């Protein structure tokens, strides 16, 4: 008899990821309708940087094992599966972060169940079945899928589900868990993490993204884009044209063969708006386009646009934003 929702909580550099809190909050909403508990599972025993009870956990499982000191797909998978076998959740949720997308499909495979990957919406049907909406064709279509076997699994797209402020009055019991792990079962693991220079805020999690395209004319002009991104407290992105021209690293690329972003504000500078670029950012809440070509397709999706010379507009916009913020 499965019940409750298990949420995998990811931590990086000792901090709970905001995207995990989003998944936890989403689980709380579903659990409230089901009137069932939410169990948060994290790997580690140190103090948590966020109050998981506040965001919806009724119970927090702290999994620890010598073999879990660094991430391994197989070690973490065995841990999640063993906890799931113990508590028999109705659903297992997590963030569609890099770790989530690597780990949770393996968990689903081990449990022999389906998983809805990178969802933008989750709801209950027929009382207790999980249905999710997920973008397909890089966001050119939405697919509503139903998970047919228990536990139903889903990863949630970052920055779509609100983490909210939660309820500081809530409390949760904590429980340690030591999985049974055998080194012979772990054939690969993380040896080192190298922070990337130049990517201050992760694009896929950013609330504001400012991107530069072919209109930037060269790598030496991307600091203008970065200055606006910094003033807004956002991340810097780029079109494929700029990346392929070697003007900026591909980790900034937004689009069908780059990253998919879902910020509250997306500012496209000197980007014409090819289908493949739109596929990566069209679910942004507000889109602003700055382009000297009034016919650029980007203006068809923009909420606000400036037809003009971005080399004049961007610095002026950066100044205006700074003035507004300091007033």
């Amino acid at each position: 008899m499965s019940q409750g929702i298990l949420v995998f909580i990811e931590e990086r550099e000792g901090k709970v990821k905001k995207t995990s809190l989003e998944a936890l909050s989403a689980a709380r909403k579903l659990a409230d309708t089901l009137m069932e508990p939410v169990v948060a599972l994290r790997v580690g025993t140190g103090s948590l940087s966020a109050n998981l009870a506040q965001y919806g956990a009724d119970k927090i499982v702290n999994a620890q094992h010598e073999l879990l000191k660094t991430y391994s797909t197989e070690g973490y998978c065995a841990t999640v599966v063993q906890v799931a076998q113990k508590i028999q959740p109705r659903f297992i949720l997590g963030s569609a972060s890099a770790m989530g997308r690597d780990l949770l499909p393996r968990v689903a495979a081990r449990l022999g169940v389906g998983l809805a990957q990178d969802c933008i919406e989750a709801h209950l049907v027929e009382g207790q079945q999980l249905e999710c909406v997920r973008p397909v064709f890089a966001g050119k279509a939405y697919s509503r899928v139903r998970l047919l076997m228990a536990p139903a699994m889903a990863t949630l797209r970052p920055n779509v589900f609100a983490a909210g402020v939660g309820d500081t009055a809530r409390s949760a019991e904590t429980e340690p868990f030591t999985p049974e792990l055998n080194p012979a079962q772990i054939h690969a693991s993380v040896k080192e993490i190298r922070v990337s220079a130049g990517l201050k805020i992760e694009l896929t999690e950013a609330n504001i993204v400012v991107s530069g395209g072919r209109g930037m004319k060269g790598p030496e002009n991307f600091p203008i884009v970065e200055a606006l991104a910094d003033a807004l407290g956002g991340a810097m992105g780029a079109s494929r044209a700029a990346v392929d021209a070697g003007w900026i690293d591909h980790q900034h690329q937004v689009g069908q063969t780059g990253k998919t972003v879902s910020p509250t504000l997306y500012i496209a500078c000197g980007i014409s708006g090819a289908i493949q670029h739109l596929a990566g950012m069209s679910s942004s809440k507000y889109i602003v386009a700055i382009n000297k070509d009034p016919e650029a397709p980007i203006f068809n999706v923009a909420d606000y646009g400036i037809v003009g010379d971005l080399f004049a507009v961007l610095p002026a916009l950066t100044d205006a934003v700074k003035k507004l913020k300091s007033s």
Partner: protein
Amino acid sequence: MKIVVCVKFVPDTATKIKIAASGKEIDLADVAFVVNPYDEYAVEEALKIKEKLGGEIVVVGAGSEQATAGLRTCLAMGADSAILVSDPSLEKADSYVLGTALARVCRNLNPDLIFFGKHAIGVDNGQVPSVVAEQLDLPQATVVTKLDIQDKSFRAERDIEGAHEIVEGSLPAVITAQKGLNIPRYASLKGIMAAKKKQIAIQALSSLGLSAEDVKPRVSVEQMTLPPSRPPGKILKGDVSEVVPQLVKLLHEEAKII
């Protein structure tokens, strides 16, 4: 070294998507198909490893017989042989069922390395590689941007948020390719001619010995829709000294973002 590359034939990225009459899939009329762009990085990496360490590359696809065109492209790039697991049901199979079928084929091939692209454009799932790795009890490294292979081990760099992880593990392993791993070669004319003589073996799904439980769907698509259309926006024209304050005002007062 025996390398398997699993390859998917997918709608071109430039495709304008329309929903089919059933409301549960896209309309495939007039859609051009290509080898999944991420799978090209996988094929190229296999070719580079073969050039360095010797061996054999088998490309594997699953679906209807149309997919042989995609496999032929990979053979033209330099893969040695191809297998298509043929069954129309595999065109719409979920990741678990598709992965289970591919895992069975891979098990029979007994490879040292199994490559995938990080996800297939279209369903954008990225789950099949994990199903294959799980069922073959292999380690996996996904979204890999750099790979070093030794006789019995691998070292991979993979993309995570704002950083790169270095993963080390043993072979055999499942690796999924990310953009930046390499620059895929174009098939040469010589390669295209040679590909005509290379074998594409068609295996029926029923010949794989999968059970009814193996092929039972885990996920059903209930409906496919186009995203909500956006209303026309406010396009500002005029002097920078006018439009910039106008935009800031709109973002502050109307959109309330800054």
